[in-house]
C-alpha cells in the first residue's frame, strides 16, 4: 500500500512540475492527459464497452450453433475445421471492438476539430496534438481489447488468449485510425457512424465462413481486419504463431495516420501572414489590363518594381527609404510609390496580390 501511495504522490509531483512547462515533451504529455480525459468522459462509449461486449458475445454464445465449419486460414495454409460458435465469437469480438474504438476516435476528433484548429492557430504543435491522439488510441485500444479478451475467456478458452487479445488490439487500432480520418473529413456524427458501420459490416461479413464459405483470399486480404481475423482464428484454434498477421493492423494504422496527418495539416493551416515589426511594410496588388499591361498598386508603403530580375546585378538593393518588392514579369522596369502606378508590360506570370 505504501508503494502505491508513493507512486501516486510521485506521479502527482511530476504532474505538478509539468504545469508551467511548455517544452514539446511537456506539451505532448499534457495533450495526452487531456486526450485520455476526453475519452474517459465519453460515457456512451464507456457504456458500450462495459455492457455491449459481454451482451453481444453472450448472444453469439447462446444463438450460433456449434457445428463444424471450415475456415480458410492463411496461418495453417488450408481449411481449418473450427467450431462455428467459437469462430463467431472471434468475429463478434473483433466487430464490437472495432465499432466502439472507431466511434470513440471519430467522435473525439470531430468534436475537438474546431478546438484543435484554435490551438494550432494559437501556436500549438500539430505533430504534438496528432501524436497525443495516437497515444490516446493506443491506450483506448489496449483497455478495450484487454476487456474484450477477458470477457471472451469467460465464455470460451481460446488456445492462445494473448494472441487473441493482440488481434483484438490491432483491429481496434485499424478502426481507430479510420475514425481519426473520418473525424477530420466528415462534418456530421451520423455520416461518420454510417461509414464506420458499413465498412465494418462488409469487412466482417465477407470474412465469415458461414456467410461466405468460398476461398476468396485474393479479395478478403485487402479488408481492414483481415490480419486480425486470421490471427484471431489461429489464436483460438491452433498453437501457431500469427503475430505477423495481427501486425497488419499497424500497417492500416500507419496508412490512416498519414492520411490523417495531411488532413489535419490542411484543416489547421494558418492563412494569415505575420510580418515582424522591423520589416518594411509593403502590400502590392497586381492586375492585368485588356492591352496586356500590368497595373501595380501599392496598398502599403513604397515599393521597387523589378521586372528584369534575371538582369539584376548580384547584390542589387532597393534605394534607401523604399521597401523592396519584386514582381516577376517581363517588360520595362519601374519604380512605384505608395498609391497606384502603372507598369506597361507583357505579362508572363501574374500574381494577384503580393506582399513583402
Amino acid at each position, binding site marked *: 500500500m505504501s508503494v502505491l501511495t508513493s507512486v501516486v504522490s510521485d506521479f502527482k509531483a511530476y504532474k505538478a512540475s509539468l*504545469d*508551467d512547462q*511548455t517544452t514539446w515533451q*511537456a*506539451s505532448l504529455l*499534457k*495533450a495526452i492527459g*487531456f486526450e485520455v*480525459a*476526453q475519452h474517459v*468522459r*465519453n460515457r456512451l462509449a464507456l457504456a458500450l464497452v462495459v455492457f455491449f461486449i459481454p451482451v453481444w458475445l453472450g448472444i453469439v454464445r447462446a444463438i450460433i450453433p456449434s457445428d463444424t465449419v471450415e475456415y480458410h486460414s492463411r496461418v495453417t495454409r488450408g481449411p481449418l475445421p473450427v467450431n462455428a460458435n467459437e469462430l463467431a465469437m472471434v468475429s463478434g469480438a473483433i466487430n464490437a471492438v472495432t465499432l466502439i474504438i472507431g466511434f470513440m476516435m471519430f467522435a473525439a476528433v470531430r*468534436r*475537438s476539430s*474546431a*478546438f484543435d*484548429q*484554435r*490551438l*494550432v*492557430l*494559437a*501556436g*500549438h504543435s500539430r505533430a504534438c496534438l496528432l501524436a497525443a491522439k495516437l497515444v490516446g488510441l493506443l491506450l483506448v485500444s489496449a483497455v478495450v481489447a484487454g476487456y474484450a479478451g477477458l470477457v471472451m475467456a469467460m465464455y470460451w478458452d481460446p488456445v492462445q488468449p494473448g494472441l487473441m487479445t493482440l488481434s483484438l488490439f490491432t483491429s481496434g487500432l485499424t478502426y481507430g485510425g479510420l475514425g481519426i480520418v473520418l473525424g477530420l473529413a466528415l462534418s456530421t456524427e451520423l455520416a461518420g457512424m454510417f461509414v464506420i458501420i458499413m465498412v465494418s459490416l462488409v469487412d466482417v461479413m465477407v470474412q465469415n465462413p458461414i456467410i461466405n464459405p468460398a476461398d476468396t483470399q485474393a479479395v478478403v486480404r485487402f479488408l481492414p481486419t483481415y490480419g486480425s481475423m486470421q490471427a484471431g482464428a489461429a489464436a483460438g484454434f491452433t498453437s501457431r504463431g500469427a503475430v505477423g498477421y495481427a501486425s497488419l493492423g499497424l500497417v492500416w494504422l500507419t496508412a490512416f495516420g498519414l492520411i490523417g496527418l495531411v488532413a489535419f495539416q490542411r484543416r489547421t*493551416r*494558418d*492563412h*494569415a*501572414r*505575420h*510580418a*515582424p*515589426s522591423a*520589416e518594411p*511594410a509593403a*502590400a502590392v*496588388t497586381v492586375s492585368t489590363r485588356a492591352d496586356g499591361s500590368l497595373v501595380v498598386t*501599392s*496598398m*502599403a*508603403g513604397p515599393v521597387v518594381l523589378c521586372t528584369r530580375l534575371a538582369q539584376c546585378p548580384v547584390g542589387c538593393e532597393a534605394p534607401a527609404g523604399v521597401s523592396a518588392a519584386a514582381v516577376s514579369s517581363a517588360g520595362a522596369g519601374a519604380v512605384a510609390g*505608395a*498609391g497606384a502606378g502603372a507598369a506597361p508590360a507583357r505579362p508572363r506570370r501574374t500574381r*494577384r*496580390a*503580393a*506582399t513583402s
Partner: protein
Amino acid sequence: MSTPDFTLRAVDLHKAFGTRQVLRGVDFSLKRGEIMGIIGENGAGKTTLLRVLSGELKADRGAVVHRDRLGYCPQRIVVNDELTVEQHLRYFQCAYRLTSLERAQELVERLDLARYRRTKAGVLSGGTRQKLNLVLALMHDPGVVLMDEPYQGFDWDNYLAFWSITKELRDRGQSVLVISHIAHDVERFDRLHRLRGGQVVEEAGVTT
C-alpha cells in the same frame, strides 16, 4: 488606407462561397493602440471577414498582414466541452508558450470565472462559456485582438468588465478589432466602420 503605423492590414480581400461573393475587396488598417469597430447586417460577411483576418480561412484573393501576435475570439464559442476551465488554460499555456498563467488568472478573476475552474466547459452556461472563449483569446496579452460579437450572453457587469479590459489593452498600445451586428456604445470605439456590399466603408455620421 495606407498607414505606416499599422499592426494589422487587410489588402483587397475577396472571398466567395460557391457563387455567393461575400467579401469584395476589403481594405483597412488597424493602428497600434486603437479600438476599431466593424458593424454590419446579418449575413454581411462579418464572421467570414474575421475568420480570414485570423488566418482560419483562406481568402480567394488579397492578403492579411499582422505585425503583432494575434488573439482571436470567434463568434462560435470554440472550447472543448469535455475539458475543465483549468485544463483549457493549461492547454493554451502550451500553445502560447507562456511561462506562467498570471495574466490568465487575472482575467479569470475579473470575469468572475474563478469558481468554475474545475468545471467542464460542457456544463457551463452560454455566458460563462463566452467568458472562457474570451480569456483564451486574451491570456497571452496579444498585440492585436480580433473579436467577433465578444459580449454576447454577458450580463451588464461583465459587459462593463469587458470594456474595461479592452480600454486597458488600448491604453497599453495594443489594438482591438470588434465585429458586431450592432454597436451599442459607439463612443467606446476610436473608429467605426461598416461592412457593406462586401467592403469595409467608414460609418457615416460617427466620429469618435
